[in-house]
């Protein structure tokens, strides 16, 4: 059974009760069909109510669910003949970012994504999905290769952040991310970015400058993790829940702010309940994005990215008399 989260506990309790009644009925031969039916109706209502009224913090929990599908899971559903390609040709191979080539329907594509582990062993190998500079430089190498062969780039974003470590600083974590932002801005092929889990800060954005940016319904995307925000803003990392609610980090929030193009609805309870169905929903969005973007010329693609990002931000002007100085 899929691991239940705290906000789902009433659902779990009710499911347990129904199961108990059923086995009691079987054992004792007493007819409890009416009671069971009524409880099942209650369960269905409770599920609808719970999953349609998820708080930002509930979504953060779903985004971090250990069984939530990862980049490689989606790749296996979405891209035929996928070949993973390794290394940045400069320093090393960073398994926190995976990338490669494959077919999306009849279209050759380059796919890049942050990759966390699906168990402790894999998490150690993949550094918990927190890339070093060589990960970002591998991503850039593959994007440039995609540009050479005129294939669109699809980026799947899922990271707690770029790795904060000594070696990462020595090898230019800042430069690696910054370089990607500038190069992605000018890439002559369509870039479609999808936040599939956690989208933390520059670490996520390092593969996140796209013509279209989408988010799964229960993913989050923010300038900083809720824990980081809480410790900076209130010097108290236990206020992460409050930070999650006030920072506007969920897909519905970012859709409203005009930061993302599409929110991709998740299957009931979250993507981990049915990865295959979730992949189909992602497939449909990639399909429609590609149809739209493949019509644009190289110059139009770059121009579209320029206008998209140029419009982000809120500011106002004051009269000279009010302004200081």
């Amino acid at each position, binding site marked *: 059974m899929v691991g239940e989260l705290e906000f789902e506990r009433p659902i779990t309790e009710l499911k347990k009760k129904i199961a108990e009644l059923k086995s009691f009925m079987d054992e004792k031969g007493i007819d409890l069909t009416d009671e069971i039916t009524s409880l099942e109706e209650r369960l269905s209502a409770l599920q609808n109510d719970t999953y349609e009224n998820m708080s930002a913090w509930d979504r953060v929990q779903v985004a971090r669910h250990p069984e939530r599908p990862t980049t490689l899971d989606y790749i296996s559903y979405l891209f035929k003949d996928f070949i993973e390609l390794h290394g940045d040709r400069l320093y090393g191979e960073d398994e926190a970012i995976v990338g490669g080539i494959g077919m999306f329907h009849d279209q050759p594509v380059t796919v890049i994504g942050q990759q966390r582990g699906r168990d402790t062993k894999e998490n150690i190998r993949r550094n918990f999905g927190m890339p070093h500079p060589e990960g970002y430089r591998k991503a850039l190498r593959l994007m440039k290769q995609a540009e050479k062969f005129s294939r669109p780039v699809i980026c799947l974003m899922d990271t707690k952040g770029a790795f904060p470590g000594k070696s990462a*600083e020595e090898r230019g974590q800042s430069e690696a991310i910054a370089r990607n932002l500038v190069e992605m801005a000018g890439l002559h092929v369509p870039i479609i970015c999808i936040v599939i889990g956690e989208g933390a800060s520059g670490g996520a954005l390092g593969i996140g400058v796209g013509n279209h940016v989408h988010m799964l319904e229960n993913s989050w995307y923010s300038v900083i993790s809720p824990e980081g925000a809480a410790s900076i803003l209130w010097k108290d990392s236990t206020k992460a829940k409050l930070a999650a609610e006030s920072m506007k980090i969920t897909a519905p929030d970012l859709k409203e702010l005009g930061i993302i193009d599409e929110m991709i609805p998740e299957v009931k309870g979250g993507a981990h309940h049915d990865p295959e169905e979730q992949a189909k929903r992602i497939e449909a969005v990639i399909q429609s994005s590609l149809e739209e973007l493949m019509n644009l010329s190289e110059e139009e693609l770059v121009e579209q990215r320029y206008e998209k990002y140029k419009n982000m*931000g809120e500011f106002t002007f004051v009269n000279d008399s009010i302004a200081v100085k």
Partner: protein
Amino acid sequence: MLKDFFAKKKKYATIPTEKMKHDVPEGLMTKCPECKHIMYTKELKKNLLVCQSCHYHYPMSSFERIGSLVDEGSFTEYDRNMISENPLEFPGYLEKLESDRMKTKINEAVVTGDATINENPVVIAVMDSRFRMGSMGSVVGEKITRAIEQAIEKELPFIIFTASGGARMQEGILSLMQMAKTSVALKRHSDRGLLFISVMTHPTTGGVSASFASVGDYNFAEPKALIGFAGRRVIEQTIREDLPEDFQTAEFLLKHGQLDKVIPRHEMKETLTNVLKIHSGRRA
């Protein structure tokens, strides 16, 4: 026990963030926070806010910096009256902005405009760490982007002096998007064959370090400036190992191939002039 003691002591000894609070010294005499040398404030200012004894570089305000670089009377400011809104309705944010406006006498954490440096025309942006730690929100991103657009239109070099703690938390995702916004503008500027010089000053960290600050055609820095992606404390907690004394300083970055040159403040104007001169023939 002993190890703990040293670990604690080290934290206070290396990062000069505390000194930031000194800002521009007031009063007749000033004591250097680094070497405790006492000097006349007037002399210190005349010396470009560099300690005569140990060469500690005091933080400079945007206008002090501009004054130290550009030809007199040549600076025309852009977008001076652009101010932040409160897009996430963050409690207390507007009050904090107002208080920083009063304190610093500038409207946001960056001042932009055009000027000449020894008769070489440039568009220049200078961040100011006194305003919300120089953090980048919508206004900082927009002012820098507009300045780059002016440089594109006028076919001028773009020079930025960075001083920033990173993204502005109170504007959430909009702050993060300023990294992308300034990048699309810089890409267009670069594609026109125009020159971009980044000069990192103390401190240049987080989202500013991970965007425009690091992608100059030339990446320069002032001596001892703190430059890095992640905070030292976060790194120490993550990797649980001792960090070198000079970790994330300009000198550390130079040693690791991340900088073209560390330039003392006294040589800044001359060095920039030389770079501009070398580039000016190309487009004539």
